[in-house]
Protein backbone atom coordinates (compact mmCIF):
# COMPACT_ATOMS: atom_id res chain seq x y z
CA UNK A 1 0.00 0.00 0.00
CA UNK A 2 2.78 2.38 0.96
CA UNK A 3 4.73 1.36 -2.14
CA UNK A 4 1.76 2.04 -4.42
CA UNK A 5 1.25 5.48 -2.90
CA UNK A 6 4.96 6.23 -3.17
CA UNK A 7 5.27 5.28 -6.82
CA UNK A 8 2.04 7.03 -7.77
CA UNK A 9 3.05 10.28 -6.06
CA UNK A 10 6.61 10.03 -7.38
CA UNK A 11 5.30 9.68 -10.93
CA UNK A 12 3.09 12.74 -10.54
CA UNK A 13 5.97 14.72 -8.99
CA UNK A 14 8.40 13.87 -11.79
CA UNK A 15 5.90 14.51 -14.59
CA UNK A 16 4.83 17.86 -13.14
CA UNK A 17 8.49 18.84 -12.63
CA UNK A 18 9.11 18.02 -16.29
CA UNK A 19 6.19 20.22 -17.25
CA UNK A 20 7.66 23.06 -15.17
CA UNK A 21 10.70 23.16 -17.46
CA UNK A 22 8.75 22.34 -20.64
CA UNK A 23 5.74 24.69 -20.62
CA UNK A 24 6.09 27.80 -22.78
CA UNK A 25 3.69 29.86 -20.69
CA UNK A 26 5.14 30.80 -17.24
CA UNK A 27 1.69 30.52 -15.62
CA UNK A 28 1.46 26.84 -16.63
CA UNK A 29 4.95 26.31 -15.20
CA UNK A 30 3.82 27.88 -11.92
CA UNK A 31 0.74 25.65 -11.70
CA UNK A 32 2.82 22.54 -12.36
CA UNK A 33 5.30 23.67 -9.72
CA UNK A 34 2.43 23.83 -7.19
CA UNK A 35 1.58 20.21 -8.07
CA UNK A 36 5.19 19.22 -7.41
CA UNK A 37 5.08 20.96 -4.02
CA UNK A 38 1.87 19.14 -3.07
CA UNK A 39 3.45 15.79 -4.02
CA UNK A 40 6.45 16.61 -1.83
CA UNK A 41 4.07 17.43 1.04
CA UNK A 42 2.59 13.92 0.62
CA UNK A 43 6.11 12.50 0.93
CA UNK A 44 6.72 14.49 4.09
CA UNK A 45 3.56 13.00 5.61
CA UNK A 46 4.73 9.52 4.59
CA UNK A 47 8.04 10.28 6.33
CA UNK A 48 6.18 11.13 9.58
CA UNK A 49 6.87 14.86 9.32
CA UNK A 50 3.36 16.37 9.23
CA UNK A 51 4.52 19.79 10.47
CA UNK A 52 6.94 20.03 7.55
CA UNK A 53 4.11 19.08 5.16
CA UNK A 54 1.94 21.89 6.55
CA UNK A 55 4.82 24.37 6.26
CA UNK A 56 5.50 23.16 2.73
CA UNK A 57 1.93 23.85 1.65
CA UNK A 58 1.59 27.15 3.52
CA UNK A 59 4.97 28.70 2.75
CA UNK A 60 5.84 27.23 -0.65
CA UNK A 61 2.52 26.48 -2.33
CA UNK A 62 0.92 29.44 -0.57
CA UNK A 63 3.23 32.37 -0.04
CA UNK A 64 6.08 31.91 -2.52
CA UNK A 65 3.91 30.73 -5.40
CA UNK A 66 1.45 33.58 -4.88
CA UNK A 67 4.39 35.97 -5.11
CA UNK A 68 5.63 34.35 -8.32
CA UNK A 69 2.18 34.27 -9.95
CA UNK A 70 1.65 37.87 -8.90
CA UNK A 71 4.89 38.95 -10.58
CA UNK A 72 4.02 37.00 -13.75
CA UNK A 73 0.68 38.80 -13.81
CA UNK A 74 2.30 42.18 -13.11
CA UNK A 75 4.84 41.84 -15.93
CA UNK A 76 2.17 40.55 -18.35
CA UNK A 77 4.54 38.10 -20.04
CA UNK A 78 3.52 36.37 -23.21
CA UNK A 79 4.68 33.01 -24.46
CA UNK A 80 8.37 32.35 -24.90
CA UNK A 81 8.92 33.58 -28.44
CA UNK A 82 12.66 33.14 -28.86
CA UNK A 83 13.69 29.61 -29.66
CA UNK A 84 16.26 27.93 -27.48
CA UNK A 85 19.74 27.34 -28.79
CA UNK A 86 20.28 23.72 -29.74
CA UNK A 87 23.86 23.71 -28.44
CA UNK A 88 22.54 25.14 -25.16
CA UNK A 89 20.04 22.28 -24.96
CA UNK A 90 22.77 19.75 -25.70
CA UNK A 91 25.14 21.22 -23.13
CA UNK A 92 22.41 21.49 -20.51
CA UNK A 93 21.28 17.94 -21.18
CA UNK A 94 24.85 16.67 -20.92
CA UNK A 95 25.49 18.42 -17.60
CA UNK A 96 22.14 17.31 -16.18
CA UNK A 97 22.82 13.71 -17.21
CA UNK A 98 26.22 13.95 -15.55
CA UNK A 99 24.58 15.20 -12.33
CA UNK A 100 22.11 12.31 -12.40
CA UNK A 101 24.90 9.82 -13.05
CA UNK A 102 27.00 11.03 -10.11
CA UNK A 103 24.09 11.14 -7.67
CA UNK A 104 22.80 7.72 -8.69
CA UNK A 105 26.33 6.34 -8.37
CA UNK A 106 26.55 7.64 -4.80
CA UNK A 107 23.10 6.34 -3.89
CA UNK A 108 23.75 2.93 -5.42
CA UNK A 109 27.21 2.29 -4.02
CA UNK A 110 27.01 4.30 -0.83
CA UNK A 111 25.39 3.18 2.38
CA UNK A 112 23.22 5.49 4.50
CA UNK A 113 24.71 4.86 7.90
CA UNK A 114 23.94 5.97 11.41
CA UNK A 115 20.53 4.47 12.11
CA UNK A 116 19.16 4.20 15.63
CA UNK A 117 18.88 7.79 16.75
CA UNK A 118 16.57 8.83 19.54
CA UNK A 119 13.69 10.11 17.35
CA UNK A 120 11.79 6.92 16.50
CA UNK A 121 8.21 6.48 15.33
CA UNK A 122 7.07 5.84 18.92
CA UNK A 123 8.66 9.08 20.15
CA UNK A 124 7.00 11.05 17.34
CA UNK A 125 3.58 9.54 18.01
CA UNK A 126 3.82 10.11 21.77
CA UNK A 127 5.16 13.69 21.75
CA UNK A 128 3.87 14.92 18.39
CA UNK A 129 6.02 16.15 15.57
CA UNK A 130 5.36 19.86 16.14
CA UNK A 131 6.51 19.67 19.75
CA UNK A 132 9.73 17.93 18.77
CA UNK A 133 10.42 20.52 16.07
CA UNK A 134 9.67 23.37 18.47
CA UNK A 135 11.89 21.95 21.17
CA UNK A 136 14.79 21.47 18.77
CA UNK A 137 14.37 24.93 17.28
CA UNK A 138 14.02 26.94 20.47
CA UNK A 139 16.56 25.04 22.56
CA UNK A 140 19.32 23.76 20.31
CA UNK A 141 18.95 26.10 17.35
CA UNK A 142 17.92 29.37 18.99
CA UNK A 143 20.74 31.49 17.52
CA UNK A 144 20.19 30.36 13.89
CA UNK A 145 16.50 31.04 14.39
CA UNK A 146 17.19 34.64 15.42
CA UNK A 147 19.62 35.08 12.53
CA UNK A 148 16.91 33.83 10.16
CA UNK A 149 14.56 36.51 11.46
CA UNK A 150 17.21 39.17 10.73
CA UNK A 151 17.60 37.70 7.23
CA UNK A 152 13.87 38.06 6.62
CA UNK A 153 13.95 41.67 7.83
CA UNK A 154 16.83 42.43 5.45
CA UNK A 155 14.92 40.76 2.61
CA UNK A 156 11.82 42.88 3.29
CA UNK A 157 13.83 46.12 3.31
CA UNK A 158 15.76 45.06 0.20
CA UNK A 159 12.60 44.20 -1.73
CA UNK A 160 10.99 47.53 -0.85
CA UNK A 161 14.06 49.55 -1.83
CA UNK A 162 14.64 47.60 -5.05
CA UNK A 163 11.11 48.07 -6.30
CA UNK A 164 10.92 51.80 -5.50
CA UNK A 165 11.14 54.08 -8.51
CA UNK A 166 13.12 56.73 -6.64
CA UNK A 167 14.98 56.07 -3.44
Amino acid sequence: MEAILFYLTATVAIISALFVIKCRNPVNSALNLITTFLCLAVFYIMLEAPFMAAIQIMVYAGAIMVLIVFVIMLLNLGLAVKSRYSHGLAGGGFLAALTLLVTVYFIKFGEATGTGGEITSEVISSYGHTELIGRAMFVDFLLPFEIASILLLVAIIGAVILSKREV
Partner: protein
Amino acid sequence: MITVNHYMLLSAILFTIGTFGVLTRKNAIVLFMCIEVMLNSVNLTFIALSRHVGNMDGQIFVFFVMTVAAAEAAVGLALMIAFYRNKDSIDVDDFNMLKW
Protein backbone atom coordinates in the same frame (compact mmCIF):
# COMPACT_ATOMS: atom_id res chain seq x y z
CA MET B 1 9.07 -1.70 1.26
CA ILE B 2 10.10 1.90 0.64
CA THR B 3 13.61 2.59 1.92
CA VAL B 4 15.56 5.82 2.20
CA ASN B 5 17.25 5.01 -1.12
CA HIS B 6 13.96 5.36 -2.96
CA TYR B 7 13.51 8.85 -1.61
CA MET B 8 17.08 9.79 -2.45
CA LEU B 9 16.71 8.46 -5.99
CA LEU B 10 13.52 10.47 -6.45
CA SER B 11 15.19 13.60 -5.16
CA ALA B 12 18.18 13.00 -7.47
CA ILE B 13 15.79 12.84 -10.43
CA LEU B 14 14.01 16.03 -9.35
CA PHE B 15 17.34 17.80 -8.85
CA THR B 16 18.44 16.77 -12.34
CA ILE B 17 15.20 18.08 -13.85
CA GLY B 18 15.76 21.38 -12.04
CA THR B 19 19.37 21.56 -13.26
CA PHE B 20 18.29 20.94 -16.83
CA GLY B 21 15.69 23.70 -16.57
CA VAL B 22 18.18 26.19 -15.13
CA LEU B 23 20.66 25.44 -17.91
CA THR B 24 18.22 25.60 -20.82
CA ARG B 25 15.38 28.01 -20.07
CA LYS B 26 15.65 31.74 -20.77
CA ASN B 27 12.73 33.29 -18.94
CA ALA B 28 14.11 34.50 -15.59
CA ILE B 29 10.93 33.62 -13.68
CA VAL B 30 10.93 30.05 -15.02
CA LEU B 31 14.60 29.86 -14.08
CA PHE B 32 13.61 30.91 -10.60
CA MET B 33 10.97 28.16 -10.44
CA CYS B 34 13.54 25.57 -11.55
CA ILE B 35 15.74 26.67 -8.65
CA GLU B 36 12.78 26.11 -6.35
CA VAL B 37 12.47 22.54 -7.70
CA MET B 38 16.15 21.96 -6.89
CA LEU B 39 15.75 23.37 -3.37
CA ASN B 40 12.73 21.16 -2.76
CA SER B 41 14.52 18.03 -3.91
CA VAL B 42 17.28 18.78 -1.40
CA ASN B 43 14.63 19.28 1.29
CA LEU B 44 13.23 15.84 0.52
CA THR B 45 16.70 14.34 0.97
CA PHE B 46 17.11 16.13 4.29
CA ILE B 47 13.80 14.87 5.69
CA ALA B 48 14.25 11.31 4.40
CA LEU B 49 17.73 11.06 5.92
CA SER B 50 16.56 12.73 9.12
CA ARG B 51 13.92 10.00 9.54
CA HIS B 52 16.47 7.33 8.60
CA VAL B 53 19.03 8.53 11.11
CA GLY B 54 16.46 9.26 13.81
CA ASN B 55 17.51 12.83 14.43
CA MET B 56 15.65 16.13 14.22
CA ASP B 57 18.49 18.31 12.92
CA GLY B 58 17.79 17.69 9.23
CA GLN B 59 14.22 18.92 9.55
CA ILE B 60 15.39 22.11 11.28
CA PHE B 61 17.72 22.63 8.33
CA VAL B 62 14.75 22.27 5.97
CA PHE B 63 13.05 25.02 7.94
CA PHE B 64 16.00 27.34 7.35
CA VAL B 65 16.14 26.42 3.66
CA MET B 66 12.51 27.50 3.41
CA THR B 67 13.32 30.79 5.16
CA VAL B 68 16.14 31.51 2.74
CA ALA B 69 13.92 30.55 -0.21
CA ALA B 70 11.28 33.04 0.95
CA ALA B 71 13.88 35.81 1.30
CA GLU B 72 15.29 34.88 -2.10
CA ALA B 73 11.84 35.03 -3.68
CA ALA B 74 11.19 38.51 -2.28
CA VAL B 75 14.53 40.00 -3.34
CA GLY B 76 14.79 38.11 -6.65
CA LEU B 77 11.35 39.07 -7.85
CA ALA B 78 11.94 42.71 -6.87
CA LEU B 79 15.14 42.59 -8.94
CA MET B 80 13.24 41.17 -11.90
CA ILE B 81 10.63 43.95 -11.69
CA ALA B 82 13.39 46.57 -11.55
CA PHE B 83 15.08 44.97 -14.55
CA TYR B 84 11.84 44.76 -16.51
CA ARG B 85 11.30 48.47 -15.97
CA ASN B 86 14.63 49.28 -17.57
CA LYS B 87 14.77 46.75 -20.40
CA ASP B 88 11.15 45.67 -21.04
CA SER B 89 12.22 42.05 -20.93
CA ILE B 90 13.20 39.39 -18.43
CA ASP B 91 14.95 37.17 -20.92
CA VAL B 92 18.30 36.13 -19.43
CA ASP B 93 19.99 36.85 -22.77
CA ASP B 94 19.33 40.54 -22.09
CA PHE B 95 21.11 40.41 -18.71
CA ASN B 96 24.37 41.67 -20.21
CA MET B 97 24.81 45.16 -18.82
CA LEU B 98 27.94 44.20 -16.87
CA LYS B 99 29.58 42.73 -19.94
CA TRP B 100 32.17 44.89 -21.73
